[in-house]
């Protein structure tokens, strides 16, 4: 029968496909030592990397900066199919090899450990609203212009710019899936004019060309330093940049977790102060209980980057409304500044933003920032959402702060970012310490001496009230022109407004309880409406042995019950 040949062809194709994927697995091969290798840090590192180390009193180099032993690489190269790259930090090379080949590699005396690589990245970019905003292009619609302003003004960009905090002297590495048209778009012209993009590298294809592929990187970059007709879309417009393509971001069996690791070392070598990574590795390789900051190589690499003096800012992810729910890697790493999503339309945690804590119970996210933004897309301005855009806003914010306070060490900057959160010292696992506020660096707020949170303890119950002078009722999801709702741009009501005020963070009442193991047991956000009524009532028995914390308009109440 004639169709037998078609069947044979199909079976052959299937077997060929499967055969190939079986043969070509990807592995990290870790070596035992680096004995005998020579290293000149001044020849290897960019002067800015040397300076960063010196400023932070870090050793100029340590064993993890030394190159790999060439003889070890040769031993493995002779056995495997090909080498994709290497990591000095982990003394490892990334190879393509068959199972048979990798068994041979295992027996080499220089090999300490082998780890297979199979994971898929998730861009922290959601829903792809992604419609071109012509109104922005012709610059006539104040609503959209205020929307651009709000994404940075909510964190107080005016204060920073008044003081010329624009990230000068800082170098920011951006890891993403591609940066199409960054070399020609107006939004980045101010950076190109001063040759502000210092290096680019595509770790997927191993070449310097990054101005193509997925536009996610263009969008995140614009939220770090883009400009729209003189309006900053991010905070670090005067910084220098390193653009790394670490992800393919298409359907594939293998993804580029190892690209992230290599890019982090490249960023270190090239003198980056801040790394922005709007990427997360979740269910394709891991289970939630592995989100402990130690299980994934990418999280270990992120911690290593912090040890080298770089601030790693990573998006929390968009898993909040899905099954995964919690943050991914490397946002789970303890030295990573993890940024959750803040919904400007509701004034609180965005529904889709991933929640903390980490699997081992550490508080995450650390801060939150606006996750519905106007970003520069491949061909125009786009309204889009995702914690992908919260992270670059904070990365730019941190760089602007650090640029003006260069004497600080990386973890001091990390702490300052947390302290600048609008809720600090209060926190929860949705908002972290809240949205960073530039005002925290400039305004000295004298304590009023009076805490507006008034707690009354009865025999069996505890009541919280707000003192009448401080009570601000809040009805809408977002106040607009003295009341009413502020809606999403897709909403028809929004479109009818020709003028939209800049957004503000609404005055919610927050409370949580913390148990003896320093874990939050529950956390809540309350919208206040009636000044004559108590805000909350707790059964004493239920909060016994726990710390109760309440927060309202810059004031916190805390008591161990």
């Amino acid at each position: 029968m004639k169709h037998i040949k078609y069947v044979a062809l199909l079976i052959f194709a299937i077997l060929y496909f499967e055969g190939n994927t079986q043969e070509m697995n990807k592995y990290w091969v870790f070596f035992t030592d680096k004995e005998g290798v020579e290293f000149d840090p001044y020849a290897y590192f960019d002067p800015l990397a040397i300076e960063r180390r010196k400023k932070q009193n870090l050793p100029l180099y340590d064993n993890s900066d030394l190159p790999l032993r060439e003889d070890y690489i040769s031993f493995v190269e002779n056995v495997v199919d090909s080498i994709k790259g290497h990591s000095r930090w982990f003394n490892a090379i990334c190879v393509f090899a068959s199972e048979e080949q990798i068994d041979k590699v295992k027996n080499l005396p220089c090999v300490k450990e082998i780890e297979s690589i199979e994971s898929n990245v998730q861009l922290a970019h959601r829903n792809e609203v992604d419609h071109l905003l012509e109104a922005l292009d012709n610059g006539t619609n104040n609503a959209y212009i205020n929307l651009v302003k709000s994404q940075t003004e909510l964190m107080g960009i005016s204060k920073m710019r008044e003081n010329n905090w624009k990230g000068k002297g800082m170098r920011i590495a951006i890891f993403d899936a591609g940066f199409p048209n960054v070399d020609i778009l107006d939004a980045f012209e101010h950076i190109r004019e001063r040759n502000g993009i210092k290096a680019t590298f595509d770790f997927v294809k191993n070449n310097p060309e990054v101005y193509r592929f997925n536009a996610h990187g263009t969008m995140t970059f614009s939220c770090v330093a883009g400009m729209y007709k003189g309006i900053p879309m991010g905070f670090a417009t005067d910084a220098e940049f390193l653009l790394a393509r670490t992800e393919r971001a298409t359907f594939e069996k293998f993804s580029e977790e190892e690209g992230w690791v290599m890019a982090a070392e490249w960023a270190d070598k090239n003198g980056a102060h801040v790394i922005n990574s709007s990427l997360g590795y979740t269910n394709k390789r891991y289970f939630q209980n592995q989100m402990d900051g130690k299980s994934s190589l990418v999280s270990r690499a992120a911690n290593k980057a912090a040890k080298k003096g770089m601030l790693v800012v990573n998006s929390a992810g968009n898993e909040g409304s899905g099954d995964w729910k919690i943050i991914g890697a490397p946002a789970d790493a303890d030295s990573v500044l993890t940024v959750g999503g803040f919904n400007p339309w509701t004034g609180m945690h965005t529904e889709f933003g991933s929640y903390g804590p980490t699997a081992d119970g550490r508080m995450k996210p650390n801060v939150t920032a606006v996750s519905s933004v106007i970003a520069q897309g491949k061909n125009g301005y786009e309204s889009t959402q995702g914690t992908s855009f919260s992270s670059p806003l904070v990365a730019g914010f941190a760089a602007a702060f650090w640029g003006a306070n260069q004497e600080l060490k990386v973890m001091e900057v990390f702490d300052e970012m947390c302290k600048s959160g609008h809720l600090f010292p209060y926190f929860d696992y949705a908002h972290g310490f809240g949205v960073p506020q530039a005002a925290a660096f400039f305004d000295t707020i004298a304590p009023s001496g009076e805490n507006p949170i008034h707690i009354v303890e009865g025999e069996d119950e505890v009541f919280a009230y707000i003192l009448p002078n401080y009570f601000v009722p809040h009805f809408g999801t977002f106040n607009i022109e003295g009341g009413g709702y502020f809606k999403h741009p897709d909403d028809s009501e929004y479109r009818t407004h020709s003028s939209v005020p800049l957004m503000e963070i609404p005055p919610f009442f927050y409370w949580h309880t913390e148990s003896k193991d320093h874990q939050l047991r529950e956390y809540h956000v309350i919208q206040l409406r009636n000044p004559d009524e108590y805000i909350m009532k707790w059964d004493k028995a239920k909060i016994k042995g726990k710390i109760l914390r309440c927060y309202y308009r810059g004031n916190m109440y805390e008591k161990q019950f």
Partner: protein
Amino acid sequence: MKNNFSMKKSIYIFVLLASINSFLLNQKLSAQVSVMSVDVQKQNIRIYKNDFGPNKTHYVGGYISFAFAFDAPIDNEYEKVIDTEFWGGGSFDIGMYYKFKLNHFFALGSDLYFSSQSYRLGELGSVTPIPITSIDFNREWFSVNRFGIAPWFRINVNKRRGNHLGNFIDLGGFVNWNFAESQRYAVHEGAFSTRKADLIVRELDMFNDYDYGFLFRLGLNKIVFFSEFRWNNLLIDESINTPGSIFPRFRTGIRIGS
């Protein structure tokens, strides 16, 4: 009088409803409103104790698949594979499955599906005589609709994977209940031209109620290539032209799902 009563009743109901509405509105405005409430322990139980997922103890997925039938040419005194057109027949399945994870490498499961299979004959009238000779039929199909169950044993080949299906091989069997069969004759002017006439014969008694066989699958996460071998004959020998005629016993195709 009756009208008057109805009017009064309506007014009372209106006033009552208005009062309830006003009361409810007032209540809503006067209370503080919880806009976010997270019980961390409950959330953690949901996240960490959840044993349902593509690579967890229990999983239920859905799929659709497309396949075609084929066989080696057999023509001897006992058996004859019916000549079917390769592109003229095929099958469409829609189903769901349950998977029980035994360990990281092995799982058991079963599919439950509806399948519609058709065979376009290469040689008209080779199974049953063409009923109306005055019309010059130039195409003939047999269609079988069935429900099936297919238990299988899964071998996962990924050494490390998270909560996703991964790459796997399934070995198993299937049993189909053939509940609706039909035979269709049609006149076509050309390969893709307009159909001129159809004659459909239903409630055929030439098919076995059940068929069964073995299956093999190669899964690349959500894309699965599969082949099946039907062990028994679909046709009851006594009801057809040529005893020993069998429809192609192999079925191979692609399946996409969760």
